[in-house]
Structures are given as C-alpha cells and as structure tokens.
C-alpha cells in the first residue's frame, strides 16, 4: 500500500480530503477520521486499520507457532472450551469471523463430525434386527454426509492469514463444509439472518469499530442465533495481574523477535490486550448491539474470557 510511505505528510493531506482521496484512492469518507489507538499509540482509524493489517501480514506464517509459544499451548484448551460451549449439532451454520488460520473452524468440523458419528451409531443400536443391506446403507449415508449439512464460513480481512488457513486445511484434510471469504468484520458480505452461530476468537480486539462489528454480527445471525466471542480480558487478582504483566511485556516481545523476527508486532499484541475493554464493558457493548442473555465466562483467571449473547 502506498500509504505506508507517506507517514508524516498524512495529517497535512488529511486536511484536504480531496487530495488525500485522489492520492490514496482508499477513502470511504474517513480520510483522517477520529482518533483511536494502536497499542499505546494514538493514531487515526485509517492508520490503525493499516497497521493492524501489516501486523498480521507479518506474523501470518508464524502465527500458530507463536500462539503455542506465547501461551504454552494453552490457547488450544481455550479454543476447545469455546467449541464445547457452542455444542454445535449437525446442520449448524457457523460464521467464524477473523478466523484467519482456521483454528475454530477445524474444531467445529471435528465436533460435528463426532456428534454425527455418535448419532448414526445410536440409530443403528436401536435397530438391532436390521438386515446387512440396511446396515450398509446407513454407513453409506454417513459417508455421503459426514457433517450432516453443517457448514463453516471463515471470514478474515487479511489475505495472508486466509492463505495460511487454506493451506492448513489442505494439509490436515479439511474440505467438506468449509469455505473462506476475504471480508471486513465491520462490513460483512453476508445476507441477514443467515447463520446459527457467529464466533470471533482473538479477533475482536483488532477491529477498529467494535460497535459496527457487533451490529454486523447481530445482523447476519438468525433469530435464535448465538454470538460467541473469545478474547483476552482483564485479570482482577493483583498478584496474578503483576505476573501476567511481567510475562507479557518482558517475555512475549522477545519470543516474537526470536521466533517470528518481529518484536514490534508482538509489542502491539501485548499493548492491544491492555487497551481492550474489560469483561463488564464488553458485555454492555454486546447488549447495545441488541443481544440478549449476554454473559461471560472467565478462563485462566480472566486472562481470557468467553462472551455469549443471543439474537431473539
């Protein structure tokens, strides 16, 4: 993007929206826009979007390795818990936003697959006096619809993350019921009332207008649909909080440099976690978007929280 090179000139150009638009061709009416934050820096909304895009462009290849190193593998447990909480039944339509490398999508597929297998086994057990023909027919059915019409659409704003996700899917053998879309959480390219579940795992923190993302989440969910958000949150215990801070600011950026060769991106990550609203505040924002029965579940003493809400 040509924007990166303009740096200090941008605030000046921003005061002449026509010139900026003509130069960058990026305008959507937010030339300089209101101020927001990037980690601990203060930047314009447009700048924030670009900087975050670059962060994930840089880390995409090493994203999964970094997640394992930073959280000592615990992020896998958090994601498992999210999908278990979702408890999807075969036939569920899931949209996983900011789902980049596919962690939630793959877990969803595994889950419905095993639920479906169990369903078919139960059915067989009940019909003990079936002929061999009938039994083999029901095995055929399982092969044809192993997911029972369940589908997950992974939507992410970052091309590199989606690329990595698609490669992982191929590598791990996921193809059925899985699709990928390049899209913006603030402006989803999906029709109203389409999905049973909307998830956003470790992504909402990187959205510039969280209120818009929540509104879009509400819009694309079916009535009765569920919103689930897994995100870093605030630790209330003071001792743990100190240890967590120490680990975050002293260890994580160093890991970032060693493993991904990118100190700054991981510095941003740590700062963005501190800037993100705590549990109660996020709960209110979700309620403002129209969701009902909103509550949250702390994991690992509040290092991470799962927020849930329903569209009625």
């Amino acid at each position, binding site marked *: 993007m040509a924007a990166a090179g303009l740096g200090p000139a941008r605030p000046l150009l921003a005061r002449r929206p026509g010139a900026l638009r003509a130069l960058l061709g990026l305008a959507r009416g937010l030339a300089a826009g209101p101020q927001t934050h990037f980690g601990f820096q203060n930047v314009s909304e447009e700048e924030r979007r670009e900087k975050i895009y670059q962060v994930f462009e840089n880390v995409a290849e090493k994203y999964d390795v970094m997640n394992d190193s930073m959280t000592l593998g615990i992020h896998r447990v958090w994601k498992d818990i999210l999908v278990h909480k979702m408890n999807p039944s075969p036939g569920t339509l899931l949209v996983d936003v900011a789902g980049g490398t596919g962690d939630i999508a793959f877990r969803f597929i595994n889950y419905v697959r095993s639920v479906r297998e169990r369903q078919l086994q139960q059915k067989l057990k009940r019909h003990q006096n079936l002929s061999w023909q009938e039994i083999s027919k029901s095995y055929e059915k399982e092969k044809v619809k192993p997911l029972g019409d369940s589908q997950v659409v992974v939507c992410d704003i970052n091309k590199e993350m989606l690329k990595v996700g698609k490669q992982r899917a191929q590598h791990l053998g996921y193809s059925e019921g899985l699709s*990928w879309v390049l*899209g913006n959480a603030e402006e989803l390219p999906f*029709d109203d009332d389409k999905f049973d579940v909307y998830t956003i795992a470790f992504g909402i923190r990187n959205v510039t207008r969280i209120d818009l993302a929540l509104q879009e989440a509400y819009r694309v969910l079916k009535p009765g649909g569920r919103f689930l958000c897994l995100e870093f949150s605030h630790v209330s215990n003071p001792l743990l909080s100190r240890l967590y801070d120490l680990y975050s600011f002293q260890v994580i950026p160093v890991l970032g440099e060693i493993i991904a060769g990118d100190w700054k991106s991981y510095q941003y990550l740590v700062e963005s976690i501190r800037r993100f609203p705590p549990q109660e505040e996020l709960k209110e924002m979700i309620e403002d978007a129209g969701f009902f029965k909103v509550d949250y579940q702390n994991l690992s003493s509040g290092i991470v929280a799962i927020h849930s809400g329903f569209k009625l």
Partner: protein
Amino acid sequence: MLRAGRGAVAALRRAAGSRGAGGQGGGQGPGLEPSLLRFLVCPLSKRPLRYDEAANELVNEELGIAYPVIDGIPNMIPEAARRTQKQAEAVKETSGPAGPQQ
C-alpha cells in the same frame, strides 16, 4: 508475475483440451465454491450478487462493481472491487458535454 504464470498455464490447459474439475474460467485460478453463493451479498449495499464464472467475479449490477475471486477466495473488501463497464459508461453519460441523458 505469478498471476501471469498461472494465466499461461490455464491457457495451455485450455489449448490441450483438458478441463480441470471445477471449471477453470478465464479468471484467476479455481472458481468460487457454489455453497457460498447462498450467503454472499455486496458488503456495501447488502444486495445479491451475480457470479460471473468466466471472469471469476461477483458482480453487483446496481452499483456497477465486481468483486474478484482469487484462488477460490472471494475478495469482498469494497476497496478491492472493480468498477464494471456499465458504471464507467453511466459516469461518462452524466458528465458528458451533452448534459444529462435521462
């Protein structure tokens, strides 16, 4: 540059008369997964899109823009959308020397 390479390969395949599964159109790489069509709309207007298989694009006729499908992944970011011919013509008409045509 990579895109040019892929285009050349596609052209060669077509010449050889063999068609890859999923129909390699004139666009870039594999086409769109059909199951997505029931969810996708234009992110700006939230209105339905038409899938142009040949060009491998999702077209919004009303706004006159088209979203590309690259490597089977539709790019639904408004900034990435291409203005289609129709919109370019409409713009010419309204700003032409003869004044507004309607």
